[in-house]
């Protein structure tokens, strides 16, 4: 009976980890089976012949040999999407509103983090000769700073552009968000061009993030393919998992989390409980923004180059991931991200081979949206989404 008052609920902490492993393995297995089946079917067609002529291996052997690398790349990308999607889903869950400017919050986090790291590099604190431990400390500090600024920006944005529109028709805050998004893109560009004069910013090379851990070589016919994973992929995955676990705990097992969920369901009644609705919404934006900022730095770490418009496509994909998984649902965002990341990487890696160059990596975005439409036909609220209209 006093159970619910217990300070830390271990189950709540671990549950997402289990789900995550199931999702990753599940989607990876399903996609692998599809690809292998396709490879068997196409093995004796013109596509198979073409590969054999080029590389002296069968299409099936080619597919198998590349599979581990594709899976790892796909999962890493998936976790990047998931990290961004968490912010979308947080805000949507509470306000039922697509925060279009989340992409720019993401970009702000990336820029703040990268600028700090560049400054540290110029000061000689990171880079050649610095200790590995300090490299990680500085990376974390840069990420925290990015989170703080991005979270602050998200709060300011909510206060100025969304709060006055709380009771307006649904499309109005959406347009306002698009306006904020445009504004922030150019604001970042203006700030950068006034301070550094640069458009492209590059994540500095330091620490051991670029180093790859080699798991061996996979034979493919006479050749051997290296199978290796860069350390930064591990960092991305671990950070994204940590973000999910902490967020999940925060929302499901703390007082603030309960208040957030109460506000999401019924603002008037929540205020009768003594919950300051505006305060909770601001906190939601703070959390969503901080997550977006962290995702921004992870993105910069993984993909090196950022510019003021960097947020747009990852934002779009992450939003798709959130919807795919069931927007408003934290685990759904993760699942959607993993599926999207894997699917894109699979399409990008194999499509060109399977179609003999008629369609290639350029169609990977179409796959992303096609799977979305397909899922929504059968599950109109996303994979893990609840039926919104059932809301009492």
């Amino acid at each position, binding site marked *: 009976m006093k159970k619910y008052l217990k300070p830390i609920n271990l189950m709540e902490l671990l549950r997402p980890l289990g789900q995550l492993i199931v999702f990753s393995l599940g989607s990876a297995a399903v996609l692998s089976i599809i690809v292998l089946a396709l490879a068997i079917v196409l093995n004796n067609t013109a596509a198979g012949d073409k590969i054999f002529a*080029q*590389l002296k291996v069968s299409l099936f052997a*080619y597919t198998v*040999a*590349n599979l581990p*690398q*594709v899976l790892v*790349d796909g999962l*890493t*990308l998936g976790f990047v999407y998931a990290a961004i999607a968490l912010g979308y889903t947080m805000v949507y869950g509470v306000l039922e509103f697509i925060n279009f400017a989340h992409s720019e919050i993401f970009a702000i986090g990336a820029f703040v983090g990268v600028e700090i790291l560049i400054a540290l590099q110029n000061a000689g604190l990171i880079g050649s000769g610095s200790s590995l431990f300090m490299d990680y400390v500085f990376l974390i500090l840069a990420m925290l700073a990015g989170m703080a600024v991005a979270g602050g920006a998200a709060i300011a944005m909510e206060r100025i552009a969304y709060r006055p529109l709380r009771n307006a028709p649904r499309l109005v805050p959406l347009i306002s968000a698009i306006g904020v998004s445009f504004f922030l893109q*150019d604001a970042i*560009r203006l700030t950068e061009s006034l301070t550094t*004069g*640069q*458009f*492209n910013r*590059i994540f500095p*090379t330091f620490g051991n993030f*670029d180093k*790859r851990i080699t798991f061996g070589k996979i034979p*493919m016919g006479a*050749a051997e*393919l*290296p199978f*290796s994973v*860069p350390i930064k992929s591990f960092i991305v995955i671990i950070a994204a998992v940590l973000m999910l676990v902490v967020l999940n705990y925060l929302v499901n097992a703390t007082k603030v989390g309960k208040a957030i969920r109460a506000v999401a369901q019924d603002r008037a009644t929540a205020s009768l409980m003594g919950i300051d609705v505006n305060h909770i919404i601001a906190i939601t934006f703070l959390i969503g923004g901080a997550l977006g900022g962290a995702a921004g730095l992870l*993105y910069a770490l*993984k*993909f*090196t*180059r950022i*510019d*003021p*418009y*960097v947020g*747009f*496509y*990852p934002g779009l994909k992450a939003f798709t991931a959130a919807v795919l998984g069931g927007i408003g649902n934290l685990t759904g965002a993760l699942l959607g991200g993993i599926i999207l990341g894997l699917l*894109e*990487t*699979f*399409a*990008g*890696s194999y499509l*060109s*081979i399977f179609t003999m*160059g008629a369609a*290639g*990596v*350029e169609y*990977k*975005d179409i796959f992303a949206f096609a799977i979305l439409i397909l899922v929504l036909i059968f599950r109109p609220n996303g994979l893990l989404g609840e039926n919104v209209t059932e809301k009492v």
Partner: protein
Amino acid sequence: MFKRSFAFLSLLVIASIALTACGSSTPATQAADSGSPATSGNVIKIASQSPLSGDQSVIGVDIKNGAQLAIDQLSGPLKDMGFTIQLAPYDDMANPDNGVANAKQIVADPAIMCVDGHYNSGVQIPSSEVYHSAGLANVSPANTNPTVTTRGYAEVNRIVGRDDVQGVVGADFAASKGVKSVYVMHDKTAYGQGIAEFFQQEAKAKGLEVLGFEGTEEKANFDPIITSIIAANPEAVYFGGMFSQAAVMFKQARDRGYEGMFISDDGFDSSDAAKIAGDTLMAGAGTFYSTVSGPAAAYADTAKFVTDFKAAFNHDPQPFAAQSYDSAAICLAAIQNAIKANNNQMPTREAVAKAVRELKDFKGITGVYNFNSIGDPVVAKYFVIQVMSGDPAQWSANEIVQTLDIAPPAP
């Protein structure tokens, strides 16, 4: 409320009458009048059109800046003749609708004698229809799409090589280096894809095996493509497009252990490429790019341009800034010739357009230019340059490994 807006409009009418009555000296009317604040008979304007906002603005702004620098530095002779030269920078937003509307606005301003632009072929082609019908000279600093000149307009010129030349240069270079197999990539823009297509054709003609041909708009995550590249293991990878994608891809491929040669085009010519990819450009078989403008270290004019540009705008010039400088310089030279031919009077647009086409051996910072009958540079000099250092500051020390003079296909 409705009536209030009506009343407001009526007030606006009255106010604007008042403003026009006061003459055009107030700032408000001047701002409204897209013409100059001091439209006298002797103002000549050169318009630039490029994307100044949006994600392609990084190149577009430097196209504008290149033109600005040319006007600042080279309009002396025209000033001495009693003319004021100004730049009118237009933002085409990389969007044909904006480009065409701006073109019509440019055409409507009689002081504009020459247009330096655009960046996107998709904008240049419809916009130049407007320049053509108004007889206004257009010198393009960046549009490599064959259609730009194959329409045969007397007003439309370019100083960059066509896709069907630059791609060929890259392929010839690869063949000359003994490369046997190549993987071709492009950025899905008219520019990158055009170059890549012609690279592919020439490579096949030279007996190279093309192991893959792919385009992608992706700017960050090249993992899936690199997986294909590593599996195919070509001796060289060609990327038709801009450094912001190419350098990221090259770095990711090197990190994955690809050891072959990288080749790219003039969109790669930016010290930012070294900033992105660093020493990975030097690893393996190295990185090469084809370009029409020589490296700053070897060409004194180019070196001076880079220094001046940096002093004026506080950052290194992006690709096509130098070409834009030359485009504007060609405009200025042609205007000067046309004025002389017209007894030091304001020339007509047709005269300027004709003067551009008739320029003889114009010496710019990116080469010596003569135009053929459709506006392509007659013999374009191409350099294939090898990246010599991963340090962005050393970009100007990149070395020429091949110099080619190639005429465009006959008109």
